[in-house]
């Protein structure tokens, strides 16, 4: 038993050691959590500093002339009801700042002893897009926020040219063809256009070459599920005064369909499988708006369509969503918006002397497909956007489609296309930039192109 003497001390020391290890472990876990919380606090504040930097830079970019420089702004936020001055540095983004702006900005912050600044932000322009990279720092935590957006707020900022075609523009041989208003293209040349050699300058307002603008399409809505109302062959003076789904709706020659749109904030919705407009008219009554959702659009016995929809009315009141394979707008007089989802075939606008007369917006959807040579919109006849007493204005917005202007077709408005060709030596039409009467009709494309993209 002698050798077991003092064992209690050993056991106690073991217990002490266990308790100490337990205590240390608990403390380590808790301290780790406290450190995590502390890091979270710093990182959260750093994020909001970075966002603040982006906000400051956005406002700065709208007031200062950035030209082709990268402006770096840095400083600390003011307190409430206080003023603060930020310092700035201007870098040439054609030089070493041309690529890898983020790395350059972080190096700039370290080299210039700006590590204690809450905000270091770089802002520059690439085409129409403003780009911002903002570093926010709280204690030893730094967060990065990036922002890019087009600051467009009006139709004039989005559709600011008579014609923009990312791809090739080919001008016909006729001296009578002209484009009045600026032309933009991502290409370096325009086929068959040389203002120094041509007898007449066909684009007197000039061309902006190598202009890469990404025009986006507004979302095409899904067709609403409405009460079925069978088919309707309109007799004269017939009125529709409720939303509904029609398997077919025929408005024959000299017949008029009235659609009661209700009160000012009402949107009358009508879904139609086949809308046959053969020289008939659709007239709006009430003060509301009309949305037509159409799966097939044609004359009674032909693929073409002729007639009137909201003729001489306010264009912002009518939108025709057409989910069709192809469309032949032979002679349609309309004030409103026509949005053709993604036609697999051609879209023809106008034919013969009458032409199609649309005041408003024509959107043709689709995606860029170099193998599809049917992505074509043809304008023909005297006018696709006609000139009667006052010019009716149309914006043809088809950033992924080839537009062919044939005959003497003319656009008073603007065209956005993938490519544009004016075929035939005898064409005498052209494009005249004119969108000031369209007002909020162009809102869908303004909204979708006034984009904001945040990232970290």
């Amino acid at each position: 038993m002698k050798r077991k003497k003092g064992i209690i001390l050993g056991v106690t020391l073991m217990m002490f050691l266990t308790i100490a290890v337990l205590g240390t472990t608990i403390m380590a876990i808790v301290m780790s959590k406290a450190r995590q919380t502390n890091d979270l606090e710093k990182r959260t504040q750093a994020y909001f500093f970075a966002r603040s930097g982006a906000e400051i830079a956005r406002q700065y970019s709208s007031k200062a002339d950035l030209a082709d420089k990268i402006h770096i702004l840095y400083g600390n936020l003011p307190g409430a009801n206080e003023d603060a001055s930020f310092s700035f540095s201007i870098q040439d983004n054609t030089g070493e700042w041309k690529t890898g702006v983020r790395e350059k900005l972080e190096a700039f912050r370290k080299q210039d002893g700006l590590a204690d600044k809450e905000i270091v932000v770089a802002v520059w322009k690439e085409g129409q897009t403003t780009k911002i990279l903002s570093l926010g720092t709280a204690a030893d935590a730094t967060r990065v926020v990036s922002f890019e957006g087009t600051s467009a707020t009006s139709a004039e900022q989005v559709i600011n040219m008579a014609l923009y075609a990312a791809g090739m523009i080919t001008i016909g041989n006729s001296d009578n063809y002209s484009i009045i208003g600026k032309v933009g293209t991502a290409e370096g040349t325009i086929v068959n256009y040389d203002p120094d050699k041509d007898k007449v300058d066909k684009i007197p307002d000039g061309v902006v070459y190598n202009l890469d603008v990404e025009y986006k399409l507004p979302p095409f809505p899904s067709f609403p599920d409405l009460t079925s109302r069978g088919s309707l062959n309109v007799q004269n003076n017939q009125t529709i005064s409720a939303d509904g789904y029609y398997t077919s709706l025929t408005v024959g020659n000299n017949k008029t369909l009235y659609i009661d749109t209700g009160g000012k904030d009402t949107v009358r919705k009508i879904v139609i499988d086949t809308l046959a407009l053969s020289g008939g008219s659709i007239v709006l009554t009430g003060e509301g708006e009309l949305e037509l959702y159409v799966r097939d659009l044609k004359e009674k016995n032909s693929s073409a369509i002729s007639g009137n929809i909201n003729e001489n009315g306010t264009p912002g009141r009518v939108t025709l969503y057409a989910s069709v394979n192809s469309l032949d707008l032979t002679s349609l007089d309309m004030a409103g918006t026509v949005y053709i989802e993604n036609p697999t075939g051609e879209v023809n606008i106008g034919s013969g002397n009458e032409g199609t007369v649309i005041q408003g917006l024509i959107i043709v959807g689709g995606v860029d497909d170099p193998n599809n040579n049917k992505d074509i919109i043809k304008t023909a006849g005297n006018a696709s956007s006609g000139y009667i007493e006052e010019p009716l204005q149309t914006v043809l917005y088809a950033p992924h489609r080839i537009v062919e202007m044939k005959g003497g077709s003319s656009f008073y408005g603007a065209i956005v296309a993938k490519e544009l060709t004016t075929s035939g030596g005898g064409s005498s039409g052209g494009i005249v930039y004119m969108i000031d009467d369209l007002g909020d009709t162009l809102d869908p494309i303004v909204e979708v192109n006034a984009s904001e993209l945040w990232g970290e």
Partner: protein
Amino acid sequence: MAMIRRVSPELPLSGRARGFSFVEVLIALLIIIISVVALLNFLTTSLRVNDTSSKIAGDLLVSSGELEIGDINGETATVTVNGVKISGKLRESPYGSSKKLVEFVRPSGD
């Protein structure tokens, strides 16, 4: 009546050899008490720190959410840079017992 005492040859009767000494037990008890008290202290502090951390983290989440949503009006503040005066709102969202998150925003619509 005579008392009979059983004697084992393996266990000598020496007092020092039987059980633990009083001093040993005392020292052991002292060590255990000190370590348990220290552990309890650790535990209390740890629980308090843990609780505070959790509260701060939760508060921080709410506070940053308020800034994200834009629920806070904020006070006017101005930043001047390169001659350009940028007016905006300084939003402060308090959290924890005395801390706050700060963000500068442009006036809406600009």
